[in-house]
């Protein structure tokens, strides 16, 4: 049997080599199909990895609590309208939900910021110091403010890279400078390390942090003292998130005196939820790829079937001779199946090369990140094999069913 397979593969290669143009055109469908799959999966993987990296910038095992009801798609009522979350909620959660390592809170508003003759409209965030650790912010220069700054409502600010770029000259050191927010002077004590885009696509570096107490008393106005825009928490282990969410819900419902049939007046999201939305997006992409791949492989397979049917007709006499000298049905079936698989595997191999080159080119030309996984290459190879096998089956059986006498007499 090994000699049979080996010789049949050699024969198949020789026959294909004789009709190089025909073989090439036949393989084209498979080549394009496999190349498209490899290139697009590599691009998709690259994009997915980039999104995962963005989600990681949120912090580690982060839980976010908004006031108001939020639909699953992320659309929600204006954050400021419902005053349902307070600093005491956050403090109480920390006390009563032991799974939470820490809680922090923030309130934000977009305001004008001035430095000398430059100005910029940016989001001002009044935050608790713990917010910075929960969200994993670090510094390129200077450092965070402290509980003392919060207690004394100090006029100090931490600014993101985008703010630096828009309010300062290149090379100018922001730390120690004084900027004005809503005409109140603030001393810059830290510059935040850049985080880039968020998973939702917003610029995370367009940000200013000031102590929550300072924001309440000196910037936002006193109308909603104690209310916060968002409460943040984090757990030690990612597995603790669901349990923590349940506990938070219980505590908040009790604190907000919600009856059994009343809806929550807050929304809890975890980092895992946000990742899941992104996964959904990449699943859509995967489905699209899958349909493109199926269509090209189908077209490629039909091409192979067609060429094999031609080959069976052309070589009818040869098949008759082979039967006359003792070829069994399985030998004839094997011969044509091996020819089909040789075609499809060659096409698959060419497609893989083309796809990898295409993915690399995309990275070089368009700058998109691409990741070529060995999995997709193995799968592509396997699929070309299956296509060859499936579409070779009919012609091979047709050949094996020939009557030896009629085949020998065929002109």
């Amino acid at each position: 049997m090994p000699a049979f397979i080996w010789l049949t593969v050699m024969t198949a290669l020789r026959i294909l080599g004789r009709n190089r143009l025909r073989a090439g055109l036949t393989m084209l469908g498979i080549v394009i199909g496999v190349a498209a799959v490899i290139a697009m999966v590599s691009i998709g993987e690259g994009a997915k990895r980039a999104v995962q990296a963005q989600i990681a910038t949120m912090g580690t095992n982060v839980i976010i609590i908004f006031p108001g009801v939020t639909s699953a798609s992320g659309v929600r009522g204006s954050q400021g309208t419902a005053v349902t979350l307070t600093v005491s909620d956050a403090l109480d959660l920390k006390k009563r939900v032991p799974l939470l390592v820490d809680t922090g809170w923030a309130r934000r508003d977009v305001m004008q910021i001035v430095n000398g003759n430059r100005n910029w409209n940016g989001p001002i965030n009044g935050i608790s110091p713990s917010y910075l650790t929960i969200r994993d912010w670090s510094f390129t220069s200077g450092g965070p403010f402290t509980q003392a700054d919060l207690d004394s409502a100090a006029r100090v600010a931490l600014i993101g890279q985008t703010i630096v770029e828009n309010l300062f000259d290149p090379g100018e050191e922001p730390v120690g400078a004084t900027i004005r927010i809503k005409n109140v002077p603030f001393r810059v004590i830290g510059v935040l390390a850049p985080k880039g885009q968020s998973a939702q696509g917003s610029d995370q570096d367009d940000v200013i942090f000031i102590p929550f107490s300072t924001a309440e008393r000196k910037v936002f106005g006193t109308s909603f003292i104690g209310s916060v825009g968002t409460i943040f928490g984090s757990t030690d282990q990612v597995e603790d998130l669901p349990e923590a969410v349940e506990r938070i819900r219980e505590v908040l419902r009790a604190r907000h005196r919600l009856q059994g049939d009343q809806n929550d007046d807050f929304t809890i999201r975890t980092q895992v939820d946000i990742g899941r939305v992104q996964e959904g997006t990449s699943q859509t992409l995967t489905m699209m790829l899958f349909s493109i791949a199926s269509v090209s492989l189908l077209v490629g397979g039909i091409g192979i079937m067609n060429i094999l049917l031609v080959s069976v007709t052309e070589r009818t006499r040869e098949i008759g001779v082979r039967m006359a000298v003792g070829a069994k049905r399985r030998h004839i079936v094997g011969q044509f199946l091996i020819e089909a698989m040789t075609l499809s595997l060659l096409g698959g191999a060419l497609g893989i090369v083309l796809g990898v080159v295409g993915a690399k080119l995309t990275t070089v030309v368009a700058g998109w990140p691409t990741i070529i996984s060995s999995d997709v290459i193995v799968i592509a190879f396997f699929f070309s094999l299956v296509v060859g096998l499936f579409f070779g089956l009919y012609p091979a059986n047709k050949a094996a069913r020939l009557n030896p006498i009629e085949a020998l007499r065929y002109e």
Partner: protein
Amino acid sequence: MAPLIQCDDLWKIYRVGDVEVQALRGLSLTIEQGEFVAIMGSSGSGKSTLMNILGCLDQPTRGRYRLNGVEVGHLRPDQLADIRNRQIGFVFQSFNLIPRTSALENAQLPLFYRGLSLKEQRAMAAAALQRVGLGGREHHFPTQLSGGQQQRVAIARALVTAPSLLLADEPTGNLDTQSSQEIMSILEGLNREGITVILVTHEIDVAAYAHREIVIKDGQVLSDRATKGRSQTVGV
């Protein structure tokens, strides 16, 4: 011992549209191991039909064919393929070599289906080519060989498996006199080594090599007689 070939009341009926063609009409025949038989008869008399049945390429519509005492009619296609592969060698009028494939690989073909190792296949095929006087032509393609040489490759392919029966349907029909004589000498030699040879021909001088001459007419045996054979008339 059972005769090599025993045919009883063979019928072969082809149906073309509404017309029935009776290619064999109750033909009976016995051939012993080691015979050299020439089958003659006018075109359309049923010679090829008979040869195909004897070679297990085709089955009779009615009647019984025993090869080496085994009734062939009951066998499955794969068993018939095995018989063709191990017991029977075929030589056709039109050579029927596989195009663009070397003489050696053509001669290897039956061994290939027997599942021998490549080395054994090559060695046995080379010996068979040597036997028919084509040593040194192993790597020639059919198009690079004369008609007589192509037919010798076909004989090498038929004898490579050391069959007990060699069937040749008008083996010299496409050849000149010189090549015909070469082919017949080879067949004569094989018969002398003990292989049963059955040969269809229209030519008297080709038939003269055989020791028995069967004439077929309208699908039946018209005459069946022993002949002297060339070896007795001409000497070895």
